[in-house]
């Protein structure tokens, strides 16, 4: 549960919303140019960002820093299984289903 005030949360929501719209509107609304007009370096960075950020978020969600680190806890094992499913299927629903089912089974056993 957060201790951030409701007013501050609304500021975050509105700034994030305006910024996200600006990113979407950038070329469609203002620059009117195709992707070939984006500098090569920027294009490469934009291509790499999703993989890096998603991986960082996945890892931080699984390895909870508030709990002392135990590599063989149920969440880690369920996450490993889900990673295999994610890799083989590239399917969000299958990954959620496999990971949650594995976690519930492991929690029932331990």
């Amino acid at each position, binding site marked *: 549960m957060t201790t951030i005030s409701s007013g501050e949360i609304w500021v975050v929501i509105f700034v994030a919303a305006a910024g996200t719209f600006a990113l979407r509107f*950038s070329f469609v609304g203002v620059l009117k140019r195709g992707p070939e007009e984006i500098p090569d370096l920027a*294009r490469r960075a934009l291509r790499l960002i*999703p*993989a890096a950020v998603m*991986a960082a978020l996945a890892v931080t*969600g699984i390895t909870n820093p508030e709990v002392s680190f135990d590599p063989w806890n149920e969440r880690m094992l369920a996450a490993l299984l*889900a990673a295999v499913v994610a890799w083989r299927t590239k399917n969000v629903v299958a990954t959620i289903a496999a990971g949650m089912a594995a976690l519930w089974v492991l929690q029932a056993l331990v």
Partner: protein
Amino acid sequence: MSESTLKSVFWAGVVNISPILIGVIPFALIAGVAAVDAGLDSFAAYALSPLVFAGASQLAAADLIGRDASLAVIVLTVLVINSRMVMYSASMAPHFVKASIGRKAAIAYLLTDQAFAVSILRLEERNEELGVRVAYYLGAGLGLWTTWQLASLAGVLIGAGVPSEWSLDFAVPLVFMALTFLAIKDRTTLVAAVVGATVAVAAFDLSYNLGLPLAA
């Protein structure tokens, strides 16, 4: 272009995005539940969906709010995750240059991974009239938008009612894990994912707040 043709093109967009929607529903439910879980009131938790309207970033924002990250880090993380929209926007731009400013705003607002994926091939392969292009894209975009709004609202309403023994919070990193493997397309994106994950783990000791922007 007749009204009925535009209508049928619009519905073709809806039909073509519908297989993707099945995968979007659980994602949206989790985004709604996670926002309530983080401690947002129902109204703010739902407001993310129409205002930000970008699933992975909504989930990340909820996650960081729940962990009391600094406001700048939350906003920065959302924008970094959504920076890929710039590439989509650039790819769409040449096809909608002559659209009115209002329509461009609507096109931009509805721009998502899914609407982009469903539209870009048709835009590049067929040289259709502007009205047809807009109608098709709006069909795909609004199909996804409506699904996202309803399913995330359902998630917000269910939110507090989910028993903690279900460990539904675990679904959040699972979504990110699936998105990671979707984002890995070749060797360079694989390296990016490994670096992102490593930096995120290493930055735990440093400060949780710094981890995500550093990883990006």
